[in-house]
């Protein structure tokens, strides 16, 4: 009976032990970009082409990429949204100023 029990326990434990000793399956590489980051990056380039990119937009986008790489999707999306807003605002500012900058000349 004792022999039967030890044989059975070996049968049960061996696969578990092999599971424990086996090398872990390679983790999926962390994503470095998301659709929101791509969208913000495209908008940033448009603002830059007009000469109206804001100071922090690219830095915020870098932080969004870093957050994504450490697996913090929520933080990444939050930062990418902020960058997207800045990029769109910079572009809108550039388009407006191209047409209306003369209105900014102070009157004597």
């Amino acid at each position, binding site marked *: 009976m004792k022999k039967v029990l030890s044989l059975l326990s070996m049968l049960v434990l061996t696969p578990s032990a092999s599971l424990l000793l086996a090398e872990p399956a390679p983790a999926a590489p962390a994503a470095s970009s998301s659709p929101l980051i791509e969208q913000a990056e495209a908008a940033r380039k448009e603002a*830059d082409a007009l*000469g*109206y*990119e*804001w*100071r*922090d*937009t*690219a830095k915020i986008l870098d932080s969004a990429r870093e957050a994504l790489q450490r697996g913090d999707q929520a933080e990444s999306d939050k930062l990418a949204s902020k960058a997207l807003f*800045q990029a769109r605002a910079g572009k809108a*500012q*550039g388009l407006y*100023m191209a047409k209306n*900058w*003369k209105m*900014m*000349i*102070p009157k*004597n």
Partner: protein
Amino acid sequence: MKKTIQRGLFTGALVLMTAMTAKPANAAVNYQALVDADVKKFQGFFRKEFPDVKLEDFGNGVYALDEDARKQWKEMEEFPPYELDVEAGKALFNKPFANGKSLASCFPNGGAVRGMYPYFDEKRKEVVTLEMAINECRVANGEKPYAWKKGDIARVSAYIASISRGQKVDVKVKSKAAYDAYMKGKEMFYAKRGQLNMSCSGCHMEYAGRHLRAEIMSPALGHTTHFPVFRSKWGEIGTLHRRYAGCNENIGAKPFPAQSKEYRDLEFFQTVMSNGLKYNGPASRK
């Protein structure tokens, strides 16, 4: 018959009047006159805002507007913090390149050329600044260019400015291409940008002489006459384009590279606006 003659006379008179009033298609535009009108308005703005300040004094920036700040600055200028930089700049200016020539070989008048820059190069179709000419001289003689914002470029520029003091600002805008560059600089000066939605003119025209936190805003008139400057904030000497980049950073805009077309056009416009003043660099600033 009478009616036909009357109609003919009327049509003839109309054609004559049209011919007399219409501008010929190829009439030459006097760009300098357009620019001179702008200078008059621009300088008039500051004369009206600060009726007690002499035109010449605007080259001293905020120290032309605030008596207390002027006293402190005058004391600082007794032992100018840029003095050693001017000496170093002189040595660099005369130091032979590997080919035996030197910066002195590139500039006439012993290097007292501050008053010649910036100018619009009609062949290259672009604004050439003093710092650009310094580095182009080095590259043409097989040397590496200096970094643009500070260090040796500012030292050489300071030396050239120091031996050019008193030269009159008199920048010409003679062609359409030059006028286009001028207008680009003008747009850069007046357009609001960055997260704070501010412009050069917002701070240095409309707010000139007023406080922004602890600082008094300097007048834009005379901005370009006294560079390079030794800024206490920097703890060293730096170029005008370094200052431009700092201003853009302050208002939350991505700065352009030093000596980019954008900043050269801005320097061109700003210097034209100071036509009639005298170069008085280098200088010290807070």
